[in-house]
């Protein structure tokens, strides 16, 4: 890389010039920040200011810029220069907007601004320009695992967009669960009647599309590589295997119905007249619009009971704790099979809470009532076969009484269990158990499904990580389809329980994501959420101790091991969160433009006043996804906070290396606040595990503090949502108060 030419630009617009001594800031940039020049401008983000900067860049005067103006989140389109490194000093949202415009506050406000100039200068000095590794080319081919509604739709969408798709289906025919349906829940107005499933047409479209290859009776026996260069072995039942290259992968492996034999109270298996929802579909298919007959004796069904939430939404051992989302609609649809064939049939849906999701859900419910389906709010306790008929025992929750109801047929609405393969996170638990109890270990082994879907050749495990209840981890609101394996997208009921309409939508979303991923990979750019980022982690091999912390902690399984057991970074799998960098105990991992040095030096650049000046210094390491915007918005709302705080944005709290905390304390900082996103099952972390890992790391910082003879209150970690605009200034001010109470840090030199 060519010589670094540093230059600073100080904006005086938006009141910065009135509140701060810009001349002084320019002098600090030159003298302390060691920049070649420091220019002041009255309105830096206007076309004149931008032109001035561009002219300097074009003239070769500068290639590492400090822009001291507003927050790095503001005016990003104006200060968007190519092929240069930029650091932004936040003088507007971070200084003048959070400080009162009084003579008393003037001095501390100016100090705040000066420190941000020092921090930005130090940061830019240690930044390098990122360049793509060009590890992969453009592979316009997507692997779709699963040939059900989701897989078929995904493949079609991919083909329609001009890319190739390959479907791998385990069974001998396409269609998945939907092929077993007599009819589907309607997805068009007036949402009144069951509708043709359309699956035959879908299969026909897929089979006649020359951009789609279909492998039946096949499984994926090995997947390796990264986005843009996935290689998958597709093995036929017969034993033959083909290997192909793919740009990205969609896992649409669907669900299997919950095993109703686990519900002995409902006598499933004891009488053929007790069926689950797929069993009823089979009976309806057989009847094909005519009267549905009982399996036991072929008698026409005159009364049928649908037991909702059978083995689901229950905290009993072995039951599903969640709602499968489609069963109320499905049972209504199935009750209509009976009512449409013969209105005299008594069809009763026994529910506790009826849930009719989707645009047409309520209309469909109303239509069911109109057709005379009886909806009874009650809890079924038992189904008893008694010679020719079945007695359903339930408690009517409206009339508050126990009822015995005789029926010819009982349908159990059991839930959806995802086909998500091996739970890779259950494996370490198994190893731990090995030590203490052999029996417990055997139990764990029994509950782990052995069949892998993707057979990933990743150090972290063979399948996609799961979040709760065995569904693949894919943030259901913020980042649907995204999984913790970059370039592999989950769609359909493997992600969360859903019906055909939602699965179709999912397929489209995942298809677009898959295309985006392979295109990004070809350009060497990050996919979601730092979309377009070219930076990429690398490590200094000489320093590496092969501790494997990076390979273990990477939330995306981006780091494998090479033959010598050194970490092997896969650029295209990386999301650029920096969790590896935060994890590395020997600090050998860095990005070109984000490293232990860039942030560490910025922290060290802060001028810490002597103890007797009574000006404490508080460092905030704020996640740039949620906490930093919240701080910015606090500024926009002119909420004041302590002038002693210095905020350093980080890509993710997971990228915070404890050395920053230790160094800051050694440099005389009095308090440190870490602000990350919400963690746990309902996490909001853009990098899934980053915040959680950071919290774990910081929970161990107390020892360090005690070693340094410091109070543990000096370092605090918070979960911040982007909406915590009132809360962030409060947290900062509380810390300032705490320091006032416990006194200044003794480590000021």
């Amino acid at each position, binding site marked *: 890389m060519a010589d670094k030419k540093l230059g600073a630009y100080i904006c005086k617009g938006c009141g910065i010039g009135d509140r701060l001594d810009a001349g002084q800031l320019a002098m600090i940039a030159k003298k302390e920040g060691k920049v070649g020049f420091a220019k002041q401008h009255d309105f830096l983000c206007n076309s004149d200011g931008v032109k001035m900067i561009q002219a300097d860049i074009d003239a070769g005067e500068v290639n590492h810029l400090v822009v001291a103006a507003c927050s790095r989140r503001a005016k990003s389109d104006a200060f968007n220069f190519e092929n240069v490194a930029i650091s932004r000093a936040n003088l507007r949202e971070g200084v003048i907007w959070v400080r009162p415009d009084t003579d008393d506050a003037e001095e501390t406000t100016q100090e705040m601004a000066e420190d941000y100039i020092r921090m930005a200068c130090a940061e830019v000095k240690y930044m390098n320009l990122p360049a793509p590794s060009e590890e992969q080319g453009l592979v316009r081919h997507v692997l779709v695992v699963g040939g059900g509604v989701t897989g078929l739709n995904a493949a079609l969408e991919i083909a329609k967009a001009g890319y190739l798709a390959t479907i791998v289906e385990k069974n001998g025919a396409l269609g998945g669960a939907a092929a077993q349906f007599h009819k589907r829940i309607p997805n068009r107005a007036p949402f009144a009647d069951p509708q043709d499933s359309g699956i035959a047409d879908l299969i026909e479209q897929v089979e006649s599309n020359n951009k789609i290859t279909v492998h039946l009776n096949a499984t994926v026996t090995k997947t390796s590589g990264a986005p843009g260069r996935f290689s998958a072995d597709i093995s036929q039942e017969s034993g033959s295997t083909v290997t192909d290259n793919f740009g990205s992968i969609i896992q649409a492996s669907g669900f299997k119905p919950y095993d109703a034999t686990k519900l002995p109270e409902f006598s499933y298996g004891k009488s053929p007249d007790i069926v689950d929802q797929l069993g009823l579909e089979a009976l309806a298919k057989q009847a094909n619009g005519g009267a549905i007959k009982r399996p036991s004796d072929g008698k026409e069904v005159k009364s049928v009971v649908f037991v909702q939430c059978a083995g689901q939404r229950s905290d009993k051992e072995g039951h599903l704790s969640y709602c499968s989302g489609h069963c109320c609609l499905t049972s209504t649809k199935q009750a209509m099979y009976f009512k449409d064939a013969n209105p005299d049939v*008594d069809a009763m849906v026994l529910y506790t809470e*009826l849930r009719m999701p989707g645009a047409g859900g309520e209309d469909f*419910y*109303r239509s069911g*009532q*109109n057709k*005379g389906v*009886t*909806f*009874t*709010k009650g809890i079924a306790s038992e189904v008893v076969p008694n010679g020719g008929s079945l007695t359903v025992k339930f408690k*009517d929750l*409206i*009339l508050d009484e126990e*009822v015995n109801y005789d029926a010819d047929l009982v349908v159990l609405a059991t839930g959806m269990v995802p086909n998500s393969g091996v739970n890779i996170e259950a494996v370490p638990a198994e190893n731990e158990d090995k030590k203490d109890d052999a029996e417990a270990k055997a139990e764990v082994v029994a509950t782990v499904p052995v069949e892998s879907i993707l057979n990933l050749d990743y150090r972290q495990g063979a399948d996609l990580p799961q979040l709760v209840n065995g569904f693949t981890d894919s943030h259901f609101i913020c980042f649907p389809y995204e999984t913790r394996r970059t370039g592999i997208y989950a769609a359909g009921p493997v992600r969360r329980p859903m019906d055909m309409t939602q699965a179709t939508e999912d397929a489209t979303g995942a298809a677009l994501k898959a295309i985006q991923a392979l295109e990004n990979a070809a350009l060497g750019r990050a996919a979601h959420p730092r979309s377009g980022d070219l930076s990429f982690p690398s490590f200094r091999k000489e320093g590496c101790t092969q501790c494997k912390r990076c390979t273990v902690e990477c939330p995306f399984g981006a780091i494998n091991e090479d033959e010598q057991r050194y970490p092997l970074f896969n650029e295209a799998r990386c999301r650029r969160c920096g969790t590896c960098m935060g994890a590395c105990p020997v600090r050998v991992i860095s990005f070109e433009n984000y490293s232990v040095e860039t942030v560490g030096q910025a922290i060290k650049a802060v001028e810490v006043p002597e103890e007797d000046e009574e000006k404490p210094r508080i460092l905030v390491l704020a996640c740039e996804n949620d906490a930093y915007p919240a701080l910015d918005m606090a500024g926009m709302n002119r909420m004041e906070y302590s002038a002693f705080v210095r905020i350093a944005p980080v890509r993710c709290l997971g990228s915070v290396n404890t050395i920053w905390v230790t160094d800051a304390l050694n440099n005389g900082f009095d308090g440190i606040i870490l602000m990350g996103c919400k963690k746990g099952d309902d996490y909001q972390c853009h990098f899934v595990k980053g915040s959680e890992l950071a919290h774990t790391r910081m929970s161990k910082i107390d020892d360090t503090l005690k070693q340094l003879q410091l109070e543990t209150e000096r370092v605090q970690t918070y979960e911040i949502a982007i909406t915590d605009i009132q809360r962030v200034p409060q947290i900062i001010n509380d810390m300032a108060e705490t320091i006032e109470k416990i006194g200044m840090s003794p480590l000021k030199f």
Partner: protein
Amino acid sequence: MSNLNTATVEKYRNNFLREVEANVEEGHWVKMCMQCGVCSGSCPLGPHWDHPPQKIFMMIRAGKRDEVLGSSSMWMCTSCYNCIARCPRELPITHIMHGLAHYAKRLGLAPKNQPTKKFAQIFWDSLSKKGRVNELKLGLSLYFMNGFAEGVKTSLKMQKVGMGMLKTKRMDPLEIVGGHGCKDKKGLQAILKKAREIEDAKAAKFQQA
């Protein structure tokens, strides 16, 4: 049990919902209730009912014929129309309640000694006789509805009000003997007679079926 009642029980067996749909005014709405309970919560007399409307609808679906038709609930309705105004499914609940009361009365299953039912009968009798409600007679028969002693007691209690009404010429004591009627009394009687014939024919037809 009246003949009509025996016939309906036979016809519908356990399917009381269908019976209601066929015979009760606005009865076809009952199946559309989604059991949200807004009607029960909105009813000013709700706490005094044996079964609030939500429950009545569920009981109909559960085939509880005797409990529903023998219930005093429908007779408690004051026609305030709160339930109709609030029902998210737009069921004409007030009308269904009156329909059910009427049907129960026709079958002879309505609860004996239900005061609203009694009052309605007195009102109707007074009205159908002369085409006008005789307020004095209606009032007095209401006082004596529950026996002579009770009637005397109520009359004494209401004495002051009565005297006041007399003084202000709001009440004509001569109404006690006969009282005045509408213009074409005979015409009215004929209309009512015809209506009765039509209803009876309907019931007869029903019994045959």
